[in-house]
């Protein structure tokens, strides 16, 4: 009650002096919205700025804050990147990571499309339980699976082979993509499929000619999401791959480049920067799809 009266009192004051109010609200907006937003952006981006600036600094500047301003680069150098590309197996690691990410994304998109189509459109008995089961699979994190999976992989003779990663990554990609695609398929009207059925199309023709073209945004979203997730994956790659040249970027940087007590921060940061760039670029082309997949999956 008192709140309400106070608010009306404020409102009437505001109508008396509109100039002051507009000034007041602009400053207020500045302080309550733009200032915190700017702080958020600075805090969220600072580690990347630091990563980027470190990878182009010569070693002399890197370890001497007294003589050089640490926030700027005095004389930028490509030394660390050259070292990384020509004196380590970094290009190998990049190629492995890329291959694994592309293959596991393709594999999981293929199986998710079929599964989502079966669950959402073929409507068999118990389809909702299959859907629920796949959803629950998403809640099983890799951290509790990697030990038994390592023995399974060993029994299958896939240990130390990129194929092990290509086959295990779908365990966390398929549940997510299937749920996303079920959501997309749901939004496509049944009538289109019925028309096609009347015209004598088979189920697979319907999937290929009608449902899939309409679900392209969903496919792109699921594809990007899967790609970034498999690029980010760490624990399976750490546990299943042993030989240096078959490692993925994130594992290799941590196990091959971090050696001894003196860390080569320049190369480490250059490696992190180069390892982040492909996925960041890929993401920047499809931001909207990525955001819609992220939020769509949450809303489903």
């Amino acid at each position, binding site marked *: 009650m008192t709140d*309400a009266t106070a608010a009306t009192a404020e409102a009437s004051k505001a109508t008396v002096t509109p100039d002051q109010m507009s000034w007041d609200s602009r400053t207020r907006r500045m302080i309550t919205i733009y200032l915190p937003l700017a702080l958020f952006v600075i805090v969220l981006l600072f580690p990347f700025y*630091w990563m980027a600036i470190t990878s182009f600094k010569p070693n002399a500047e890197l370890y001497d804050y007294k003589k050089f301003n640490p926030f700027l680069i005095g004389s930028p150098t490509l030394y660390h990147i050259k070292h990384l590309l020509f004196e380590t197996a970094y290009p190998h690691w990049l190629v492995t990571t890329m291959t694994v990410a592309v293959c596991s994304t393709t594999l999981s998109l293929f199986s998710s499309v079929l599964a989502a189509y079966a669950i959402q459109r073929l409507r068999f008995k118990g389809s909702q339980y299959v859907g629920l089961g796949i959803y629950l699979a998403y809640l099983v994190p890799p951290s509790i699976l990697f030990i038994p999976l390592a023995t399974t992989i060993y029994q299958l003779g896939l240990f130390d082979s990129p194929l092990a990663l290509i086959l295990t990554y779908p365990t966390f990609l398929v549940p997510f993509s299937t749920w996303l695609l079920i959501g997309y398929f749901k939004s496509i009207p049944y009538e289109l499929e019925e028309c096609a059925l009347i015209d004598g199309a088979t189920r697979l023709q319907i999937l290929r000619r009608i449902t899939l073209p309409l679900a392209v945004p969903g496919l792109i979203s699921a594809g990007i999401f899967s790609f970034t997730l498999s690029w980010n994956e*760490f624990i399976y790659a750490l546990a299943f791959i042993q030989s240096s040249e078959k490692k993925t970027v994130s594992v290799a940087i941590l196990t091959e480049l971090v050696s001894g007590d003196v860390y080569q921060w320049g190369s480490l940061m250059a490696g992190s920067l180069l390892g982040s760039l492909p996925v960041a670029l890929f993401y920047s082309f499809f931001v909207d799809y990525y955001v819609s997949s992220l939020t769509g999956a949450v809303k489903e």
Partner: protein
Amino acid sequence: MTVTTMTDWTRARPQPNWLARLFDYKPFLVVACLTPALGLLLVFLTYPLGLGIWLSFTDTKIGRTGEFVGLDNFEYLLSDPQFWSAVFYSVFYTAVATFGKFALGLWLALLLNNHVPFKSLLRAIILLPWIVPTVLSALAFWWLYDPQFSIFSYLAIDILHIRKTPFDFLSTIWPARWSLIAANIWRGIPFVAISLLAGLQTISPSLYEAALLDGSTAWQRFRYITFPLLLPILAIVMTFSIIFTFTDFQLVYAITRGGPLNSTHLMATLAFQRGISGGELGEGAAIAVAMIPFLVAATLFSYFALARRKWQQGEAND
């Protein structure tokens, strides 16, 4: 003339061959469509899950199949202070990091829900920490936490003159724990903020207009409109966040590897250290299995939140 048109007519509708007919037979089609996905999940998810539970009751080591030892692994773990320390830190890490992520993420979502210029660009920038591989950003944090060349120490000593000695981020127990939590919050904010922003955008503006006409304060609008309508999404996002924070591995493995004095081990990193590095597969599996009750609790939380949401919308379960 008429004959040729007749034959053309019949030739235009050839009978589908047996393969096409098989693929149009619904039960077969359902099985064929589900095989790849369910096959992958059964072989590489369900089977290892069961195998993991079995392994936790055996004394398997790398290169040697173990024998059933009953609850020995668990009994051993229960008397192991390092295991308890990992359980404590996992719970503490999850609780504090989740609280931080949601407080800051909700704030960021509310800020972004205003009319601000370059909104989609801002959204893209804000998601960056979430996109970049965790290990790589963790390395950046490791460098930021460097005992000698940390930029924070430089700021505090040489610019602000509030300290004489460099910060000691990672070499003693509690600072190391807090530093890891800070890195986790940094990485988690974008996901929470963008998901909650999507939730905020579904709330009808007319509700706020009505509340404004009734003379509500900003806090009342948040408390009685925004928060209740955001709750279902908040609950789901929180479940995912809790599950993936609790089972976090990468940040700790990259920054401290469980040190100093094994004080920053999460259950996942301890399981890795004992199971893969140490070769005690059975014991590692037991630590991993010990995480399951926590995850089940989080999942049940999600289930009830979902049920509540459907009930609110008056939809049938589908």
